C-alpha cells in the first residue's frame, strides 16, 4: 500500500521527465520543427523534445552516465523555455482569436477532453499489467539502467530500436517503474492535439474538438496509453511525418519537409518497422502535385540519415548488424537463431489468420470496425467507419495522393503486421476524415445535425463506459498497486515469489513476466531469440545455451499429477531429471499457477558457479 507521500512521489516521477522533454522541445521546435502555432505547437514540441532527449539518453547511457529523476529535473530547469513559453502564449492567444467565435459547446468539449487526458495520465502511473510491457519494455529499460547500453545476449529485444523506451530511464533509475507509462499517455495527448488541429483546419473548431476528444476515448488509446508500449509514440511521430508531407503538398514550406524527415527518423528510432513510412512519405510528396526540388529532398534525406545514425551505430556495435533485424542472412543476426526471424514474422501475420488476398483484405478492413479479432477489431471505435466515408467529395490531387499512400500502407499492414497497434500512424487520418465527414453531415440540415449529435453522444457514452471500466480500477491501484497487479495476473505474483527462491539467473517459462526482482532468463523463443524450449530441441543443446547464459535454476509450471510423480511434463526438463543434471527442489513447496497448474523450482545440481559447460 502506498501512502500519500509515495503517491505524490510517483506522480512527480511521471511528471518531471515528461516536463523536461517538453521543455527541451519548446526550445528546439522553433529552430528545427515545422511552422505551427496554437496547441499544435505543444504537440510538436513534445515530439521534437522526446526525439532529441531520447538520442541524448542513448549517448549518455552508452557512456554509463546515470540519469535519475534529478537529472530530468535539472534538464527541465536548464531548458526552461522562457522565450519559448512567451512564444507559445502569443501563438495560443493568436489561436484563441481565431477561435473567438468558438461556441460554448467547443469549450465544454475541450474542458471534458482535458479532464479525461488528466485521468489518462494519472492512471498510467498504476502498475504495468500489459504483457509486452512487463515482458520486455520494462526489463529492457531496467537492464540499461543497471548498466550501460550494451549487448544483452539472450534478450533479443535489446537489439531492436528502443528510442521511446529510453525515455523511461529516469523513472526506472529512481525506482519508479510504474511511472514509465506516463510517456505513453503524453503521446496519446500529443496525438489528440495533432488530430484536433488538423480536423479544425479542415472542418472547423467544433469538429476539431470532437475529433481530439474521440482520439483520447478510442479503445486503442485506452489500451496503449496506460502501458509502456511504444505504439502511440510511433503513431504520433509517423502521423506527424505524413501530416507534414501532406502540408508540403498543399503549399507548405521546406521546413515542413525537413521536420517530416526528423519525425520519420524519431519513428524509426522507436521501432524499425516504422521505416516503412520513409518510402511512403517520399511517394506522397512525389505524386502529391508539388514535387520538391532535388536539393530539398537531399537536405531532408540528410536529416533522416543524421537522426537515425546513432541507432545504426548502436546496433552495429551490439549485434554486428546495423540493420538488425533486417538483412540477417547477409549481415548476421548476432546471438539470435536465424529461424527466430522467420517465426517472428509468421507470428505477426498470425495475429489475423486470414488468407492474404483481395477478399482477405476487404475482410480485414471490415473487421477493423465490426470484427471480433482481439488484435484488430473494434479498437478504433465506430466513428471512422460511420463518418469518414461521408467526407468523400471531389478530392484534390493532394488528397488523392494521401488516400493512395494510406491504402498502400494499410495493405502492407494486412500483409505483414495486421494488429491494430501497428497502424497508429494511419488511424489519426481516419479520425480527421471522420471529423470532416461528420461536419459535412451536421451542416446538411437540422435533422442531420440532430442525428450526428445523437450518434456522437451514444458513442461517447459507450467509449467512456469502456474507458472507465479500465481506468477507474487503476485510480485505486495508485494506492494498492500489489493488489491490482495480483488481480490482473494472479499467477504472476506467485511466479515472482517462486523466482525469489531460485538461484539467479532464474529461467522462467514461455510467456511469463520478466519484470522480476532478480535476474531472469525468459525461456520463450520470442524473448531470448536463441532457444526453442520445446520438444525437438536436444536437451544437451538447451542445457548448453542455458549454461552460457549462467542460468542456475528454473521456475516452470507443471500440470497435475506433476511434480508429485517426480516429473514436470516438460520434455527437456524431464530429460535433465533423468540424466541427473537437474533436480526438483523438494524443500520449496509448489505455488499456484494458472488453473490447476503449479509453479515448481528446478535446480541444476551438478554445476558450480563458473564451471565449464559439459
Amino acid at each position: 500500500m502506498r501512502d500519500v507521500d509515495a503517491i505524490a512521489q510517483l506522480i512527480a516521477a511521471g511528471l518531471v521527465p515528461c516536463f523536461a522533454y517538453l521543455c527541451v522541445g519548446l526550445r528546439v521546435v522553433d529552430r528545427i520543427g515545422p511552422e505551427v502555432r496554437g496547441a499544435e505547437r505543444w504537440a510538436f514540441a513534445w515530439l521534437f523534445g522526446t526525439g532529441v532527449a531520447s538520442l541524448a539518453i542513448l549517448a549518455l547511457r552508452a557512456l554509463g552516465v546515470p540519469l535519475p529523476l534529478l537529472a530530468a529535473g535539472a534538464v527541465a530547469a536548464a531548458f526552461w523555455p522562457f522565450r519559448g513559453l512567451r512564444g507559445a502564449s502569443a501563438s495560443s492567444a493568436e489561436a484563441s482569436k481565431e477561435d473567438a467565435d468558438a461556441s460554448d459547446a467547443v469549450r465544454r468539449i475541450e474542458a471534458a477532453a482535458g479532464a479525461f487526458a488528466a485521468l489518462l495520465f494519472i492512471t498510467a502511473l498504476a502498475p504495468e499489467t500489459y504483457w509486452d510491457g512487463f515482458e520486455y519494455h520494462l526489463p529492457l529499460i531496467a537492464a540499461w539502467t543497471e548498466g550501460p547500453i550494451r549487448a544483452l545476449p539472450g534478450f533479443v529485444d535489446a537489439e531492436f530500436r528502443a528510442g521511446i523506451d529510453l525515455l523511461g530511464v529516469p523513472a526506472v533509475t529512481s525506482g519508479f517503474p510504474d511511472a514509465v507509462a506516463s510517456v505513453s499517455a503524453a503521446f496519446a495527448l500529443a496525438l489528440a492535439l495533432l488530430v484536433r488541429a488538423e480536423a479544425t483546419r479542415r472542418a472547423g473548431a467544433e469538429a476539431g474538438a470532437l475529433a481530439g476528444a474521440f482520439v483520447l476515448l478510442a479503445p486503442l488509446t485506452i489500451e496503449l496509453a496506460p502501458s509502456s508500449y511504444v505504439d502511440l509514440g510511433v503513431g504520433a511521430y509517423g502521423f506527424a511525418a505524413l501530416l507534414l508531407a501532406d502540408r508540403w503538398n498543399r503549399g507548405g514550406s521546406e521546413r515542413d519537409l525537413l521536420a517530416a524527415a526528423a519525425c520519420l527518423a524519431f519513428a524509426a528510432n522507436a521501432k524499425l518497422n516504422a521505416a516503412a513510412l520513409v518510402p511512403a512519405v517520399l511517394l506522397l510528396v512525389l505524386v502529391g502535385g508539388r514535387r520538391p526540388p532535388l536539393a530539398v529532398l537531399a537536405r531532408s534525406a540528410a536529416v533522416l540519415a543524421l537522426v537515425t545514425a546513432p541507432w545504426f551505430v548502436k546496433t552495429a556495435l551490439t549485434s554486428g548488424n546495423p540493420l538488425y533485424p533486417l538483412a540477417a542472412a547477409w549481415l548476421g543476426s548476432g546471438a539470435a537463431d536465424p529461424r527466430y526471424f522467420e517465426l517472428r514474422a509468421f507470428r505477426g501475420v498470425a495475429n489475423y489468420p486470414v488468407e492474404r488476398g483481395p477478399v482477405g483484405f476487404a475482410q480485414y478492413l471490415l473487421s477493423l470496425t465490426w470484427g471480433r479479432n482481439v488484435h484488430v477489431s473494434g479498437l478504433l471505435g465506430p466513428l471512422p467507419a460511420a463518418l469518414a466515408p461521408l467526407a468523400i467529395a471531389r478530392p484534390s490531387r493532394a488528397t488523392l495522393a494521401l488516400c493512395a499512400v494510406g491504402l498502400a500502407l494499410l495493405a502492407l499492414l494486412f500483409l505483414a503486421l495486421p494488429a491494430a497497434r501497428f497502424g497508429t500512424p494511419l488511424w489519426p487520418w481516419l479520425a480527421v476524415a471522420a471529423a470532416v465527414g461528420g461536419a459535412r453531415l451536421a451542416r446538411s440540415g437540422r435533422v442531420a445535425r440532430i442525428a450526428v449529435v445523437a450518434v456522437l453522444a451514444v458513442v461517447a457514452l459507450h467509449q467512456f463506459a469502456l474507458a472507465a471500466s479500465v481506468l477507474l480500477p487503476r485510480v485505486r491501484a495508485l494506492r494498492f498497486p500489489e493488489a491490482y497487479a495480483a488481480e490482473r495476473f494472479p499467477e504472476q505474483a506467485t511466479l515472482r515469489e517462486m523466482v525469489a527462491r531460485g538461484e539467479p539467473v532464474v529461467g522462467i517459462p514461455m510467456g511469463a513476466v520478466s519484470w522480476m526482482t532478480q535476474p531472469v532468463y525468459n525461456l520463450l523463443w520470442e524473448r531470448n531469440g536463441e532457444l526453442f524450449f520445446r520438444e525437438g530441441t536436444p536437451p544437451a543443446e538447451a542445457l548448453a545455451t542455458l549454461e552460457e547464459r549462467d542460468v542456475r535454476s528454473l521456475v516452470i509450471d507443471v500440470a497435475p499429477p506433476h511434480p508429485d510423480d517426480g516429473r514436470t511434463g516438460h520434455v527437456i526438463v524431464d530429460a535433465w531429471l533423468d540424466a541427473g543434471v537437474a533436480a526438483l527442489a523438494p524443500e520449496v513447496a509448489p505455488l499456484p499457477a494458472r488453473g490447476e497448474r503449479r509453479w515448481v523450482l528446478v535446480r541444476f545440481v551438478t554445476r558450480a558457479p563458473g564451471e565449464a559447460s559439459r
Partner: protein
Amino acid sequence: MSAPGPALAGGWRVLAILWMVAAVAAYLAVREAGVDWIH
C-alpha cells in the same frame, strides 16, 4: 479553415444518416451483444 465539402441533400443525406446509424449500431451489436459475423 477549409469547408468540409458541400452539404448533403436529398437522398444522399438520408443515405448518409442511415449509414452512420447502421455502422454504429452494428459496432455496438458486435461489441456488446456478441454478434460474430466477421473475423
